[in-house]
């Protein structure tokens, strides 16, 4: 009997290697778990019955193109769309023998922080089905937390891996921009989108990152990794200089229970030999969020223009071509994509470009410089991943700005193109709290080492209480 709630990917690899379990049996065990628990959680938009590959199965966020398997980005406008090609990351998983379990739910076009913006209904948090799993990769993080997948891929634009990983009590990496191919990823904001691994442990994350990372000739924004991905073994943090950015740790709206769990973790880091000191990121935190909400919608307004009803996806036939466009896009997009298309179209308009998009790009340079300065003194920066634990379904849907604030702490480093790892660091009010580690460009190995050492001493039990 395979306990999918407890089994890590690394353990699963061991079972397969020792011949104790076949890949097909493993796939079946997860499929059974999905059949049992997913009707309540709705982590999956579709599942795959006939696995290909003998390795540890995987779930992919539904922005990742999968040949012959419907890929909707949780939007009505892509209902029924089956790609004729695999995204590079999907192809790399296939090449590694990882069979596909299914495609996971998300906020439509990855726009949101709760997975409530899915056109196919929200995903629920395995720790408390009355609460959101975070977003936009909420389907992937909920699937891993609820034992419906040993590991999964998500995508992160403003915090869409790190924040739901925190809210679901799993580990998630947002890689350095340019280290994982975006080819075949339904684009939201091209200069920020990055695919990354989600798993129960840091080592699992590293194992999966090793599969997907590296230059892809089909994505000209990717680069060669400066060093291969290592599977972390470190047990201490001797000599590691940890910076605690004041603004990220003392921002308005951080719940006391979150601060408490994060401070406890910082204390553990010190006990493991790390040197801890305070640092500042004033402009990054003040301007990160507003600038993000200029750049991301601007790029989105252009990226989503291809959904016009001409070649694939939804078409609402009506009169001339303009009317067809209007009706198709009106019927096909939900409120959040429409809101961001309008924001972005406005920000790019003649006469506003310099003040909005152009200015935001300049601020982005400032944010990068501010982080660079912090990394002259420190090896990693730490903070809560999310200001709050998982919130209740519907609590923020009426207030987009409150929803946007969920990414306050993840956005600044994303704007700087930096990698960030979220690991669970304890519970607050019975719900997981995420601990964010941010490193310089290409410091994934360092983040994995630090995350792994901390994970060991934190001893977080990743199985939700109610599912035990």
């Amino acid at each position, binding site marked *: 009997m395979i306990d999918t709630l407890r089994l890590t990917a690394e353990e699963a690899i061991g079972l397969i290697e020792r011949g104790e379990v076949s890949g097909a049996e493993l796939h079946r065990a997860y499929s059974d778990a999905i059949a049992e628990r997913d009707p309540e959680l709705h982590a999956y938009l579709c599942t795959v019955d006939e696995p290909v590959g003998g390795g540890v199965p995987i779930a992919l966020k539904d922005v990742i193109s999968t040949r012959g398997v419907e890929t909707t980005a949780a939007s009505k406008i892509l209902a029924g769309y089956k*790609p004729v*090609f695999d995204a590079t990351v999907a192809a790399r998983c296939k090449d590694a023998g990882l069979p596909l379990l299914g495609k996971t739910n998300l906020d439509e076009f990855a726009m949101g922080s709760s997975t409530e913006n899915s056109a196919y209904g929200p995903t629920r948090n395995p720790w408390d089905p009355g609460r959101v799993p975070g977003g936009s990769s909420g389907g992937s993080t909920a699937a891993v937390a609820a034992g419906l997948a040993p590991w999964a891929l998500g995508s992160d634009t403003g915090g869409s891996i790190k924040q739901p990983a925190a809210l679901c009590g799993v580990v998630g990496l947002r890689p350095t921009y340019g280290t994982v191919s975006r080819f075949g990823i339904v684009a939201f904001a091209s200069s920020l989108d990055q695919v990354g691994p989600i798993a129960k442990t840091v080592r699992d994350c590293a194992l999966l990152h090793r599969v997907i990372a590296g230059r892809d000739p089909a994505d000209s924004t990717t680069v060669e990794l400066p060093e291969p991905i290592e599977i972390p073994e470190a047990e201490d943090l001797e000599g590691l200089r940890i910076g605690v950015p004041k603004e990220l740790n003392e921002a308005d709206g951080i719940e006391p229970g979150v601060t408490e769990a994060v401070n406890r973790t910082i204390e553990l880091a010190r006990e493991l030999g790390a040197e801890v000191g305070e640092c500042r990121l004033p402009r990054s935190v003040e301007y990160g969020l507003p600038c993000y909400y200029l750049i991301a919608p*601007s790029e989105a*307004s252009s990226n989503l223009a*291809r959904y016009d009803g001409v070649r694939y996806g939804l078409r609402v036939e009506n009169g001339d071509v303009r009317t067809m466009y209007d009706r198709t896009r009106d019927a096909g997009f939900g409120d959040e994509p429409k809101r961001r298309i309008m924001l972005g179209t406005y920000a790019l308009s003649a006469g506003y470009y310099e003040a909005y998009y152009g200015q935001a790009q300049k601020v982005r340079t400032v944010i990068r410089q501010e982080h660079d300065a912090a990394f002259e003194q420190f090896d990693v920066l730490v903070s809560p991943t999310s200001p709050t634990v998982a919130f209740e379904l519907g609590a923020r849907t009426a207030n987009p700005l409150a929803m946007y604030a969920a990414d306050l702490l993840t956005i600044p480093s994303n704007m700087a193109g930096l990698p960030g790892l979220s690991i669970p660091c304890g519970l607050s009010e019975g719900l997981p709290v995420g601990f964010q580690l941010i490193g310089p460009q290409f410091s994934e190995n360092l983040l994995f080492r630090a995350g792994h050492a901390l994970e060991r001493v934190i001893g977080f039990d990743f199985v939700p209480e109610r599912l035990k």
Partner: protein
Amino acid sequence: MNWEPVIGLEIHVHLKTRTKMFCRCEVAYFDPPNTHTCPVCLAFPGALPVPNRKAVDWTILLGHALGCRVPDRAIFHRKNYFYPDNPKGYQISQYDEPLCVDGAFTVPGPEGDAVVGIERAHLEEDAAKTIHVGGAEGRIHGADRSLVDFNRCGTPLVEIVTKPDIRSAEEAKQFLQLLRQTVVELGISDAEMEKGSLRFDVNVSVRPEGSDELRTRTELKNMNSFNFAAKGIEREVRRQVEIWESGGEVEQETLHFDPGNESAPPLRSKEEAQDYRYFPEPDLVPLEPSRELVERTRGKLPELPSARIRRLEAEVGFSLAEGLVTSGRDELYSRIPGERAAVANVVMNELAALGLDPAAVDADELGKVIERRGEIPRTAFTEALAASASPGFSADRYLAEAAIADVGELDPVIDRILSENEQQVEAYRGGKEGLLGFFVGQVMKETGGKANPKVVNERLREKLSA
């Protein structure tokens, strides 16, 4: 008051790369519709562009030919607009940091050079081809159905924008002819207007001569030949002058000319106020051509057509020199020995009309044919020219066979014709010497055009005056 035209051109040149600008689909415009497409050029979700290196290199080469500067950094921008021929909803183009800037292109004229400033030359992708079925005018509005062929979608295009430095329709035509020839010789484009691999728009305004103001301009689109463009410009200049002189105001607009009906008034369409919302293409990194590459490319530049016109002008005069170079026939011209003006005339007139493949012609033998032009009947001369492209052509042998100069062979024919036309012989001898042509014609007819006209003339004169 005298008015001066102020003309600027925007030229689109299709690069003849093997594959498209941002994907690996083959460039083949005339294959069956939609047979060269992929997720990238059909804009499937998640597809990403990868720039065609050859297209970038060729644009830099063209930039050199246009006397442009190639900056250290160029970027692609997105030009956003909705249309079925534009599958991404944006065209990848260049905006404020193009590959080539600040050039000057010399157009030699009979009285000195005209130097036309080049604002920029940038690289972009072409749109798909749309066909509108039903409805009027083949336009999308009112059509029953629109069909899209994506074979052309994403193919590489260079856009060249001149400064408004051109001062006459004739100069515009010369510029275009010379640019076309330059592009062809660089080997980067077929630049054939009928195939759409060279397209251009013309911006026209007028101003009082001597002033340097820039008045409202209009844009002429849909030009399908250089001659047509010249006529269109002349007509538009006249129209604008009339408007200003009658106290009116020229409006900024786009004029679509109907190429089939030159005398028809222009069909006007007010330009839609378009905001393309340009922004840097985030899917591509900046192009940073190394100095080494830029210089190496410059070194590959052949002698440009404008320089060759000046060189040949000394031999055959400006007009023939320009004609030879812009028609691409000067290479053949320079291979053929003989008196230069005669060779130039034959190459420009006779050979052009025959449509001979210059590469197949045996230039030395052709030179002999041209040298003996005067001794050969017209039709035989033309036939000899045509035959000069056949393998193993020998001028001596051909002319010996072709032209009957043998008096022993010609005399019986001449005698018969004279005896059959006694009346005309009488008339000639009575003073109507113009009838000589009549007799020559008869002999030619009788010999199937093969008689040597010089010999026929001589023999006829002799016999008629006997």
